[in-house]
């Protein structure tokens, strides 16, 4: 699970997202569970319109995954989105919040086919750079 801070437009709510992506049966397809909370109170953020897009940091703006709408999950403040990537590697997931809260949170994860996506942490050594 990965965390990152963000915030809200008018009110003083700062959103935080925990993202976990599990592989599905398809090639490079994942189901991502996103937990949105207020970073100050840790209260779950419900009723948010959430869409999830992705971009490759190593090739910015050149691979755009069409944003998919996330659906509310069973737990309060959780959302699920099915994403399909073009290739394995590091992807910056863009979480676009709209509706009662407008914001964009970015989470960089490493995706390998058939494996659980791993958060890219600056503290952890990065794997060798991928070849395109």
């Amino acid at each position, binding site marked *: 699970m990965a965390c*990152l*801070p*963000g*915030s809200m*437009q*008018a009110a*003083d709510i*700062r959103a935080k997202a925990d993202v976990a992506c599990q592989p599905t049966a398809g090639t490079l397809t994942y189901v991502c569970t996103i937990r949105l909370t207020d*970073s*100050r109170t840790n209260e779950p953020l419900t009723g948010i319109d959430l*869409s999830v*897009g992705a*971009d490759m*940091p*190593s*090739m*910015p*703006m*050149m*691979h*755009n995954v*069409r*944003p998919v709408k996330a659906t509310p999950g069973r737990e309060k403040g959780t959302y699920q989105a099915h994403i399909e990537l*073009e*290739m394995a590697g*590091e992807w*910056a997931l*863009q979480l*676009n919040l709209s509706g009662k809260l*407008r*914001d*964009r*949170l*970015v989470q*960089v994860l490493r995706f390998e086919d058939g494996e659980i996506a791993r958060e890219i*942490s*600056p503290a952890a050594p*990065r794997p060798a750079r991928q070849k*395109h």
Partner: protein
Amino acid sequence: MDDYLIGVLSNVGVISFIALSAYLLLLIGEISFGQQAFFAIGAYAAGIATALWGWPLAAGLAWGAAVAGAAAVLVGVPTLRLHGLYFAIATLAFAEMVRLLCELFRYQITIDGEPTGPNGADGFRNIRYIFENDIGPLQFLVLIYALLAAALLGFMLMERSRLGVAFRMIGEDVALAGLQGIAVARFKVLAAGLAGALAGIGGGLYAHLTTYVEPRIFDVMLGVHSLAYGLIGGLGTALGPLLGVLIDIGLLESIRSLAGYRMIIFGGVVAFLLIVRPRGLLDETVVHYVRRTWYQIGRGRGN
């Protein structure tokens, strides 16, 4: 308008700035693999200005362009003495130096209880001006294209001026341009500065569009693409690099079935065009032909 379409069009607009930046250097006959460095400098400078210093977006973008332009001039003075392959390698080395410096650069202040600002390899998150100021995706798209239109207008005016002629003369033959009384070194540094500023504006827009930048974004891949756009689109007009961007991100991106093979196809297109049309699709001959036809049509109407 569909959010995805707005996103793709925003990307096309933003990347056009770095494509125009590389194009300007191609005009003076220099191949730069390092324009992504100025894109990075613009992104960090503009992001710091709005997210950390609380500047308005316009001032932040102007600051990003100014810092990137100044950096380009500083780099241009020693490197523009080099030519061809040596210049290309020098720009690549500088860009890698900037990228590595970004990995070391830490400048954070606490805003609303959250540390905000560049944090080395973790990048620079929360450049949230457009969200804090309720600027919608469509409004930001309009801003991108308004700035791009201004840049294109600037190029068109430049092409008709003595400055544009001097740039093209230098691009054709440095020695001959010098013999014609053109201050080659001064014009080259000016071109480098303008190209840096253009890339800086693109970087500033990118940082605010995505709210997040990190050093790996400014990899050589971005520099290679920015250069390729001018080479495939054409060097006859500033619309050439924009055509290159449209071919890559607009056309190839829209063919989703290509998926991960898109880059291979793009590389093939670049290689093919460099063989059959070394000055790109909209080269000087095509532009001249279009202009002549346009004037003839205009004259025919006048009679």
